[in-house]
């Protein structure tokens, strides 16, 4: 079910030209009400609950209304994303809280090297991609029969 904005926490990213959630939403659903300086989800029926607005919000004002079958009333699952990990806080309705922390990347942010350090071979007339065959770990790429 869709994401929604808690108006008490949202400040409309007032220092920026557009809100963070507006910047990231893959379906262009988040918009800013400039009179109230609050963001909102403009079409809840088209939300994939991908959580990108939740994760990017600088004031943690965005939450997702989850499905009652696995997140019943009173329970919640809340992500907190940093540059190298994500921490999920799962609250059960009996009050139990569990936290799960996972790595999200192994390289420093911004530092993905396109060729991955693999040697380049071949040319445009070869079926090899530019890092192959080194990146396959084989001597050659499989050849298709005509």
């Amino acid at each position, binding site marked *: 079910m869709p994401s929604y904005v808690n108006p008490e926490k949202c400040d409309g990213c007032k220092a920026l030209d557009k809100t963070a959630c507006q910047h990231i939403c893959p379906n262009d659903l988040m918009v800013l009400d400039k009179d109230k300086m609050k963001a909102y989800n403009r079409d809840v029926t088209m939300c994939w609950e991908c959580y990108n607005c939740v994760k990017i919000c600088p004031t943690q004002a965005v939450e997702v209304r989850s499905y009652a079958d696995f997140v019943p009333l009173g329970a919640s699952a809340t992500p907190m994303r940093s540059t190298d990990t994500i921490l999920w806080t799962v609250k059960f309705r009996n009050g139990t809280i569990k936290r799960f922390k996972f*790595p999200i*990347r192994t390289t420093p942010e911004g530092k993905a090297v396109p060729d991955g350090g693999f040697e380049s071979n071949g040319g445009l007339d070869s079926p090899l991609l530019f890092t192959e065959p080194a990146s396959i770990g084989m001597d050659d790429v499989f050849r298709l029969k005509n």
Partner: protein
Amino acid sequence: MAEFETVVVETDLLILGGGMAACGAAVEAAHWALQNGLKVALVDKAAMDRSGAVAMGLSAINQYVGLKDGANTIQDYVDYVRNDLMGITREDLVANIARHVDSTVHLFEKWGLPIWKDEKGAYVHEGRWQLMINGESYKVVVAEAAKNALLQTGVGQIFERVFIVGPLMDGERCAGAVGFSVRENKFYVFKSKATLVAMGGAVHVFKPRSSGEGMGRAWYPPWNSGSSAYFTLKAGAEMTCQEVRFIRCASRMRTDLWARGSCCSSRGRPTPPAATT
């Protein structure tokens, strides 16, 4: 009625879309463009960091052949797909994807995607073809490699929040694309020598069983609006493997369960609809 400015962009290769396929194509294209003095432009209707069907991240890579470990052969994968699709498939395309998928996965790992390893350092499998990952930032990492490839070399330009509506035709030849910004009053005309279409499939072709706020509860994202199919039809491309349909009721396995890192075990998309222009 607002005044729409027309922006004309000329390039050699035009990549339409900003998801996993387009990002991969951008990395590859940037290398050859730099060698050959060519220009590349990539157009995404959203923000590349989190656009496409992997916007939310994934907990598994659904296709890895394992050639270097002798785990499977290309023929094994082709047999699996043919069997899965009851014989209705293009084996040449399946083999073509399979022969390049291992190198792609190895690049993902170098770019920073955490892939689970066992105590011997081998990839942890969820099934014969699936690898387990900590993939919250799967798309972020892949998009970063694409951005670095295009922008650090200076061969490429990236246009975000531009929605492509159709091909630009020169007789029977596709000579680019037209679209508009969803942020500014701008109409875009992209002129290109070659155009690669990777704008996703089509979701909500059939009305979902869920209603109201549950409408977005689709396996693939509701923003997959059928742009690729429309574009390639209009451009007169040969379309193939369009009989593959993916209708699932398993979407309750998404979202909150990512926290536990063990969902998304779809058996992969054996042959994505392909088209050439």
